[in-house]
């Protein structure tokens, strides 16, 4: 099949690129609807306080203000991703739980009037004792943030496989380390924005989101509106990174204001609001104990991990599990005990992150290197020895379908001359390697699958209708490219209608890396359905058997006698004459264990397939200032067959920035409940000039069920780039990082400690 592919696997310009680079692409904040109002949100100044009263009456008297609301105008419904985590009212009426929580809002004809009106809303609070440290929060004496969660433990995940104690006792060496990592900001280029327009009983919404169908369902619950009356529409998204998976308080705010005023309402968060009040990344404290044989084989793993969850559940059970899973999907772990606790604190809500758990991985990987060193082994060999292969089961019984892990390790190691550099590193220089596996879609009930429709229009052009959503990673272009391959019609001739709940059918959205594997598979199925119909007509018209016909460059032709050919547009018209216009439908549902549950049954097939990857980083430490430089980075990723290698490479390179350089740059800083660095001056997102020299390697394992063999494209690097730098630090200094990120002051402290130890 490889040889015959016309466009899949080619380096094509993404279908969305032109509009984006010329500024023509519109985002939510660009939207203007007739009579539209501007909303502003009043936020909690307290980390923890009882709400005694909210009075918006004076705000309504400001000229230009058309509506003012608080939680008392909502429907008393609490949101939760799971039935057992429904604790987020979005606009609370009982108490506020973090600084910046949405309390009330106004909509006015302009922003200035809205801001003026906010200052006239009277909220009476009774401040309560607050807790900011998850370990403190777990104590009996700590203030309770939610009544129903004792000791502020939101979620406890317990996984037990084999006999850990016995295996540890028999292990040749055992090592235990505890480390911490700061939470981070998503720092999407586009601050969150939403436009809600309620008219004639229907609510239309535009916002950057990672799954329109999931969003519409949540809003229909929160607003007590039938699902068909809540329509999430398509709009470009300026980044999500996992932070826009769930319904946001702003969605409810804008919707309520629009329903109240009868006019469209736009809410655009400031950069600071986006950092404080949307979603943040979990801080973690992890203890990792590993038992190893003399030959480097892992025999047992024991974990205790505490996740600082902030004020509400969000994706709690998932977030408490994923860091462990992406590790067990990569390495063979015969005996495991994992205890993950997600704990509430009076800080912003922590959600899923494109690289959630990478610090957990970094600790595991750096510890593995230290153990390898102790045993006189090479880290590459240890990874190869413990790495899973196709056909094997993970510790919690999920089958690895296709696996290019070995190739990514070998190729990244060879290209970087890893073994030699690791063994003989010069002072304050180091090299490190990180590996990981990523699930391509995980169980989401009946929303785990995707459906697609395709219609062939009268000039032979195509309209593709799918729920797939693009948060900037190129999913839209991916869908168009797959359709182009199947239908033999150039990408330019294919119009995409997507991420609109009114016209598209269910799709898991672009989280859990489902788009390439699940969404594109549905697109492929729908286009194959249409292709069959085109070929059937062509076969009759050309007088050649169906198997002999191929579609290419808008033409149906006989492979044996290429002179026998006709344009697809003629075939389309023929179909119209017959009263049977060509439409295709298709769907894909991944082979996953739907009985699997994050807390109650952490066992069974997790995902349709897994991608694999290996990162190698080289670092230099300035021992006088503690500054780390990353001169070189090599990333190898098994994405199955790359649909568009250029897009995959782009994702890998972006990941090196977001995850690799982040190891030395990024971290949220707090003073009690105040986020100290909500802006982009003090939250250090790496710039182009901070980037290392990057080499990317695509390893194609050709997944048997992926569309044209494809799996997700790039996320493994977003996870393991962090490990690579942490391991390089371990290589350079002989010690495990104690806290991430490795900021200069942190590094200097560690180096001092190291010197002290030697004395």
């Amino acid at each position, binding site marked *: 099949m490889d040889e015959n592919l016309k466009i899949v696997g080619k380096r094509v310009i993404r279908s969305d690129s032109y509009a984006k680079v010329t500024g023509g692409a519109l985002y939510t904040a660009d939207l203007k609807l007739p009579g539209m109002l501007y909303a502003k949100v009043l936020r909690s100044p307290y980390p923890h306080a009882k709400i005694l009263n909210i009075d918006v009456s004076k705000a309504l008297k400001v000229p230009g203000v058309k509506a003012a609301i608080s939680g008392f105008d909502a429907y008393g419904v609490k949101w939760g991703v799971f039935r057992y985590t429904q604790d987020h009212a979005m606009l609370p009426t009982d108490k506020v739980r973090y600084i910046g929580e949405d309390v009330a809002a106004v909509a006015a004809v302009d922003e200035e009037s809205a801001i003026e009106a906010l200052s006239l809303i009277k909220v009476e609070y009774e401040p309560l004792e607050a807790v900011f440290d998850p370990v403190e929060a777990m104590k009996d004496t700590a203030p309770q943030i939610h009544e129903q969660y004792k000791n502020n433990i939101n979620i406890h995940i317990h996984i037990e496989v084999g006999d850990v104690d016995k295996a540890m006792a028999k292990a040749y060496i055992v090592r235990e380390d505890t480390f911490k990592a700061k939470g981070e900001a998503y720092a999407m280029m586009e601050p969150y924005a939403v436009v809600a327009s309620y008219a004639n009983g229907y609510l239309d919404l535009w916002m950057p989101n990672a799954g329109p169908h999931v969003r519409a369902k949540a809003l229909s619950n929160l607003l007590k509106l039938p699902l068909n009356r809540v329509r999430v529409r398509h709009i470009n998204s300026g980044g999500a990174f996992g932070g826009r998976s769930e319904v946001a308080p702003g969605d409810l705010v804008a919707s309520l204001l629009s329903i109240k005023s009868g006019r469209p309402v736009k809410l655009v968060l400031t950069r600071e609001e986006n950092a404080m009040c949307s979603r943040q990344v979990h801080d973690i404290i992890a203890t990792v104990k590993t038992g190893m044989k003399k030959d480097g084989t892992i025999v047992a793993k024991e974990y205790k991990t505490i996740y600082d969850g902030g004020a509400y559940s969000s994706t709690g059970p998932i977030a408490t599990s994923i860091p462990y899973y992406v590790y067990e999907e990569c390495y063979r772990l015969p005996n495991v005990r994992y205890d993950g606790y997600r704990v509430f604190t009076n800080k912003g809500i922590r959600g899923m992150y494109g690289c959630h758990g990478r610090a957990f991985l970094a600790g595991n990987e750096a510890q593995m290197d230290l153990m390898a060193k102790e045993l006189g082994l090479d880290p590459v060999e240890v990874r190869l020895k413990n790495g899973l292969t196709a056909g094997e089961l993970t510790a919690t019984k999920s089958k690895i379908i296709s696996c290019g892990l070995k190739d990514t390790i070998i190729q990244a190691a060879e290209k970087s001359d890893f073994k030699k550099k690791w063994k003989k590193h010069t002072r304050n220089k180091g090299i490190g390697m990180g590996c990981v596996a990523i699930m391509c879609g995980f169980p989401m009930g009946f929303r785990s699958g995707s459906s697609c429709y395709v219609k062939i229009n009268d000039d032979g052009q195509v309209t593709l209708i799918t729920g797939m959503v693009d948060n900037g990673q190129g999913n839209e272009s991916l869908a168009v490219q797959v359709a182009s391959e199947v239908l033999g019609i150039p990408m330019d001739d294919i119009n995409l209608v997507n991420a609109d709940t009114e016209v598209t059918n269910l799709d898991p959205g672009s989280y859990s890396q489902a788009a390439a594997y699940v969404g594109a598979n549905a697109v492929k199925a729908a286009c194959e359905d249409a292709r069959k119909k085109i070929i059937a007509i062509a076969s009759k018209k050309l007088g050649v058997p169906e198997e002999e016909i191929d579609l290419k460059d808008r033409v149906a032709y006989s492979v044996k006698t290429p002179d026998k050919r006709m344009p697809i547009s003629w075939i389309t018209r023929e179909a119209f004459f017959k009263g049977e216009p060509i439409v295709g439908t298709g769907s894909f549902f991944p082979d996953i264990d739907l009985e699997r549950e994050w807390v109650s049954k952490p066992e069974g097939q997790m995902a349709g397939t897994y991608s694999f990857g290996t990162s190698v980083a080289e670092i230099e430490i300035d021992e006088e*200032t503690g500054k780390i430089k990353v001169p070189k980075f090599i990333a190898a990723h098994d994405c199955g067959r790359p649909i568009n290698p250029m897009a995959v490479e782009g994702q890998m390179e972006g990941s090196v920035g977001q995850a690799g350089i982040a190891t030395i740059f990024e971290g949220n800083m707090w003073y009690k409940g105040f986020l100290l*660095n909500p802006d982009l*001056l*003090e939250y*250090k997102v790496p710039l182009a000039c901070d980037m290392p020299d990057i080499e990317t390697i695509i390893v194609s394992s050709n997944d048997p069920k992926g569309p044209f063999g494809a799996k997700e494209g790039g996320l493994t690097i977003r996870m393991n780039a962090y490990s690579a730098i942490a391991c390089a630090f371990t290589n350079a200094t002989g010690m495990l990082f104690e806290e991430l990120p490795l900021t200069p*002051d942190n590094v*200097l402290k560690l180096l001092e400690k190291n010197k002290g130890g030697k004395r």
Partner: protein
Amino acid sequence: MRSFEYYKPNSIEEAIKIMSGLDNAKFIAGGTDVMVQLRQKKISPQHLISLRNISELRNIDTKDGLKIGSLVTHDDIDKNEYIKKYYSALTDATSRLGSKQIRNVATIGGNICNAAPSADTACPLLIFDAKAVIIGTKGEREVDLNEFFLGPGKTVLEKDEILKEFSMPRLKENTGSAYIKHTRREAMDLPILGVATRITISLDKDSQIRCRDLLCTIDSISNILMQLKDEGLKCEEARIAMGVVAPKPIRAKKAEEALAGKIISIELFEEVGEIAASEAQPRDSIRGEAWYRKEMIKVLVKRALMKSIDRIVRPDEEIYPERLW
């Protein structure tokens, strides 16, 4: 952001006249600080008086020493070869401020009048003994830059005064300078710490020849210093200035004194760094804790001095090796 009246005078006199007739007015040059403060609602002036049309503020004069008009942009300075060669520390500072886009509009006068303790150009101007030339309704006056700053955001400028230019004396022979901006990111960042140094050394003829030999080496400056140790390389004069270690950019005068007249060695530089650190009162802030800043003063003073020496002994080296130490 509140709305405001906008004025665009064509001369210093006109600008001063407009200002003295208004209440709650502010001058604006490049706007890279003023606009940010407006949006953050830190200031809310009713009138903004732009200095952009006043061309006499845009001059760079190198006839005797160096005069830089207050409206000269960071990018103008970056591109000036004379400044780069003789007043290198200034180029070190302007080339690392913000980003190219910001440097295109941000002016050196604005950087100084904003009076942030972290102002990049302040340290270089301090080590070059710059005087601020100020024009107001009462006429012209000159103020030592050392006395120009009163505290964070505060200067000696009166309401109806405009900073016209900076005037720096001609430098002696065998003088080198450097500014090191210590940041987390390579661009778009404010310094954790900024250190500028200027040093003048005395070289006898023999030393000059040997120094010239060193031009061809790619040795690190620490090695060169080691080799030069026996030459009796003497520091004639030195200036050290530090940013973000006090409420305003300051000179490390005790450290300067400890350096003057001494034979140069790395040990001396380390000693001087210690003294400079003792002259600073850094605070804990989000960009760096006080202990870290103090430690870094020691490192950066030493490095800036080494870089300054490097520029004397290897003046024609276009690209300085990244790690001189």
